[in-house]
């Protein structure tokens, strides 16, 4: 436990250095933001003054210790800005993960149950295709097909409690989860099917569907769970573009805005929170992996 704590503190320190480097670079040349504001040149110079690395480091340390990231460039409190975005973000990531993992595990188990090689080849091809296509292309194709061609789903935006706004961005994000989890589930499921455990259950008189959809599922689930946890980190990268394409008001869109608009405080907060969340997810995944290897 103590070792883990020290590891986290070292990680936090390195993360703070990295955030300080990034935010001090991003605070350069902010003068153009005020170019058409009608302000005096001296005021613009003062507002656009560059932060040194040490200033940025001091600010980062203070913000992280007190969890106070001050205000965004538009004058909004950073914490309340993030609070507003967190619910849509959780909704979207849960939808993407659930869609990707449930459909992929079900598809993989069905391939094992029905033993139709054509179905398996088609799904493997689909997974390969998804993994070879950038996420923005998947988003655009979904947008064109469901909104422009079929006209059945909204093109973007967000309204609390309405699932139709989650479907297109959720499927776009979840498609990569589907592809990766399908590969793993199929591989692991096949191994289980050729194991003694499978034959033992058959001799006990269990039906094939019960063995595949219940016992094999229980066997492969811990490993699949590790990959699902790891996949969470890839969601943030994808969400930057997906949220931009579907006008979805999540953390990914905020990150992109913070980078583009040179919003130092917002960028600092988002990098800190995303770094810490992914640190815990990857550590948990590693611990689970280790536990599984021992078992």
């Amino acid at each position, binding site marked *: 436990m103590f070792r883990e704590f020290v590891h986290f503190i*070292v*990680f936090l*320190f*390195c*993360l703070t250095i*990295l955030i300080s480097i*990034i935010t001090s*670079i*991003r605070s*350069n040349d902010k003068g153009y933001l005020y170019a058409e504001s009608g302000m005096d040149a001296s005021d613009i110079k003062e507002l656009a003054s560059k932060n040194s690395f040490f200033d940025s480091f001091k600010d980062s340390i203070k913000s992280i210790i007190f969890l106070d990231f001050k205000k965004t460039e538009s004058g909004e409190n950073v914490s309340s800005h993030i609070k507003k975005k967190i619910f849509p973000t959780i909704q979207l990531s849960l939808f993407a993960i659930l869609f990707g993992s449930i459909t992929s595990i079900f598809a993989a188990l069905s391939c094992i149950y029905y033993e139709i090689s054509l179905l398996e080849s088609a799904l493997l091809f689909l997974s*390969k*295709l998804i*993994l*070879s*296509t*950038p996420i*923005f*292309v998947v988003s*655009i*194709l979904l947008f*064109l097909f469901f909104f*422009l*061609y079929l006209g059945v789903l909204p093109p973007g935006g967000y309204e609390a409690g309405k699932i139709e706004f989650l479907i297109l961005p959720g499927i776009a994000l979840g498609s990569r989860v589907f592809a990766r989890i399908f590969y793993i589930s199929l591989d692991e499921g096949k191994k289980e099917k050729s194991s003694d455990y499978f034959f033992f259950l058959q001799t006990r008189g269990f039906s094939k569907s019960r063995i595949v959809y219940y016992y094999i599922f229980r066997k492969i689930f811990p490993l699949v769970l590790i990959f699902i946890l790891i996949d969470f*980190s*890839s969601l*943030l*990268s994808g969400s*930057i*573009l997906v949220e931009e394409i579907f006008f979805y008001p999540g953390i990914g869109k905020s*990150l*992109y805005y913070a*980078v*583009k608009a040179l919003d130092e405080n917002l*960028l600092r907060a988002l*990098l800190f929170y*995303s*770094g810490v969340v*992914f*640190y815990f997810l*990857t550590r948990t995944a590693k611990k689970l992996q280790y536990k599984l290897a021992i078992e």
Partner: protein
Amino acid sequence: MIFFLKAFFVLSVIIGLIFFNAPTNVNLNKSGLAPFLTWSHPLGCDKLGRDIYALYAFGTFTTFLISIPARVITLLASVIIAFMSYASNKYINFVIDSFASVFLSLPSFLIAIIVLYSLGSELFVFYIAIVISDWAFAYESIQGKIREVKESGYLIAAKVMGASKFYLFRKHVVPEIISMLFILFVTGIPGVIMTVAIFSYMGIDFGTDFLGPGLGEQIAFSKDYFLALPISLFTPILGILFLVLSLGKKK
């Protein structure tokens, strides 16, 4: 079958590069020209009158030209950092490892985009962005192999006989990690190709505009008139897919 598909893809790009000019000129007289009508524009023209086949061939070639060096430079940087870690004491080693874990915990695309927006969109900045965002994964894999080699008898024997760390790295470690570098190259190249396409989609070009628009930029432009001219959206998508499938390998 796959070999023929790859050969077809390579040939289609080469033919485009030889027989067509870079699609940099706008010709509104040919705007929206349908495919398969003339030999001079076999796939037709986009809304700006640029040849769609030339857009596909030059866009694919540009993506290829940018991606390969980016991956090679990333692997070289990872090897150099791994050597620094190998040659230095445990404290420096600890610092490098800690930074690697920070870089692994942040999404690589996010780091790349921050570097690009911070330092400007030039080709060498793109290489820096790719190196900074991707070095940690390659470094971790190389470190794993180095730990394995470090325990080998012949390396310990050479060390006892007074060999320098650089000599040990060059003569004993590098030959062991060569095959791993190749695997890291082919498994990492799809990611770089997709990153190039994404940046191109976001309107970031790397000074290669004399070869025409990138594949991502073509997608961003042609999606707006998809119903009128679907082929102009599908050709850049095919270019990305073929590139990834031809150069990459399943992890």
